[in-house]
């Protein structure tokens, strides 16, 4: 008994009651107030707004007073799953996302390796600096540039391909995925390489020296020393990207979309946008249901992948 009361007394300096702590450090909580309030308004209020997905939305009645939708509120979801657009959107979303993941990662790694073994420091720095440049070009300008260069009449590459091989890059929907992914590589590869350059810088130089003494060639050293060293980073990046599979960069897709490629370029996000804000008969509840479906699948994917990352490296974020 006396023991119990004594122990906390010795360490009171650290374990104050919350009331005491708050009195001494109320300013820390005051600092938290503005950002948290902003999150409650701009992130959590819309989360509450997703109940719209289960309603039969009437503008005059507002979200709360609108009647619940049929089929226990799931009418909008059922409508989406039965819609012929559903399969197409889901397929396009997954194809674009996985294609881009599978291409951009090896490209980033290759660039990082290549930069790592460029002996001329000035040239290396120069290439690296230029490689970040495209990252700063805005989506609109970037898509504008794509349209200009690949124009089959006046574009430098487009007219070349059209005149010599009869390929109309912009007018061919089957080329949309490649155009989207490879232009994305052009824009993001320098940026994506940063993390691998850092991983390569962390490789133990003694391993390289030992390999050289053993008579390993440069390619062998890359294969047996460098690649194993960056695999953990690559695995984590891959898994983290998996979590965002459905959250594809729809701003660029929307900007690239035209009548010719819409069959391959309609993704869940752009579809949700089209049935609501640009439609002549806007259906807010339906659009909300589509977004909610996407958010929920995304959430599940993130939680799963996070568990996996945690298991592998203990680097999960929760």
């Amino acid at each position, binding site marked *: 008994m006396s023991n119990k009361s004594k122990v906390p007394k010795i360490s009171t300096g650290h374990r104050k009651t*919350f009331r005491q*702590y708050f009195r001494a450090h109320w*300013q*820390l*909580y005051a*600092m938290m107030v503005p*950002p*948290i309030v*902003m*999150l409650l*308004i*701009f992130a*959590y*209020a*819309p*989360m509450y*707004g*997703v109940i719209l997905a289960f309603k039969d939305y009437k503008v005059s009645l507002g979200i709360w007073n609108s009647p619940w939708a049929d089929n226990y509120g799931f009418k909008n979801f059922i409508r989406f799953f039965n819609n012929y657009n559903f399969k197409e959107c889901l397929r396009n979303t997954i194809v674009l996302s996985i294609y881009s993941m599978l291409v951009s990662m090896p490209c980033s790694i290759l*660039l990082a390796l*290549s930069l790592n*073994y*460029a002996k*001329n420091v000035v*040239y*290396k720095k120069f*290439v690296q600096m*230029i*490689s*970040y*440049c495209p990252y700063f*070009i*805005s*989506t*609109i*300008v970037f898509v*504008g*540039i794509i349209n*200009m*260069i690949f124009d089959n009449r*006046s*574009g*430098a590459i487009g*007219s070349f391909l059209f005149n010599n091989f009869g390929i109309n890059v912009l007018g061919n929907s089957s080329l949309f995925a490649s155009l989207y992914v490879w232009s994305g590589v052009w824009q993001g590869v320098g*940026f994506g390489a940063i*993390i691998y350059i*850092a991983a390569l810088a962390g490789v133990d130089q003694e391993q390289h020296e030992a390999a050289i003494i053993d*008579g390993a060639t*440069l390619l062998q050293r890359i294969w047996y020393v460098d690649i194993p060293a960056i695999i953990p980073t690559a695995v984590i990046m891959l898994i*983290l990207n998996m979590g965002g599979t459905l959250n594809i960069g*729809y701003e660029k897709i929307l900007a690239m979309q035209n009548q010719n490629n819409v069959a391959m370029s309609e993704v869940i996000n752009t579809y*949700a946008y089209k049935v609501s*804000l640009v439609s002549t008969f806007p259906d*807010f509840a339906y659009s*909300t249901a589509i*977004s909610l479906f*996407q*958010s929920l699948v*995304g*959430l599940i994917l*993130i939680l799963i992948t996070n568990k996996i990352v945690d298991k592998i490296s203990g680097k999960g974020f929760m």
Partner: protein
Amino acid sequence: MNSKKISQDTVVYFINYVLLTVFLIIVLYPIIYIISCSFSSGDALMSGKVRLLPVDPTLQSYRAVFKYSSIWVGYKNSIIYAFVGTVISMVLTLFAAYPLSRSDFRGKKIFMVLILFTMMFSGGLIPNYLLIKNLHLLNTMWAVVLPGAVSAYNIIVARTFFDNTIPKELQEAAEMDGCSDFKFFLMVVIPLSAPIIAVLSLWVIVGLWNSYFVPMIYLDSQEKYPLQLVLRRILLLSQINLNQTNIDPEMIRRNQYLGEMLKYGTIIVSTLPLMIVYPFVQKYFVKGVMIGSVKG
């Protein structure tokens, strides 16, 4: 044997330079092409004569850009949105990040979960739209600037930076001397955090400067359009208004040429500011990516 290996390595090093150079050309070619186009005549552009260097060099496209007033209205709006948005976002981000970096901060877990959850789940397009509408923010600058002001990712990056750079002893010593938390934050933490403030500001500025979707759904009146929306009309929708009342076919043809030239000029003029700023902040930028990726 050994010399064979050395010569093989030399070949690999050489091939590596070739690869890098090919990469450099791939990155640079479209950029040089667009710059060359912006200095070429409309005739050369329409017939696709430009390959690498300007054809019939002229400054006409820039003259057209400077006369096209909605670009400059957009420019002004973008600067205002980027400035106001960045100030708000930075204050909120740093305010949230500092307490969260303190190991003694009670309730940290709850706040962290509240912030991290916004990274994983969002209400989606329409609930956001209705919120902005109900707050009567439609068609105002605040609809563009406020919703994205608090970014969970930026908070985590800033928190990690504080965690690693602000010594705990310093804060304890300050507390002993009766320095309040906020004063410590203002007088010690902020001055020590120049690199992270630079990185995060740059991210926010680039994000605001380049975004088009949010302004597109929330802004109606053209005089409030940021640059990207003006560019969207010009580049993607080809809605170019050269005030032509003329029905003379020769004039129309000339205007068509001018419209084409205008596109290239606007690309250069709109992208230039970031391209000029970027080399100066490049080293911070890389650092920020690294801090961010450590705690993905």
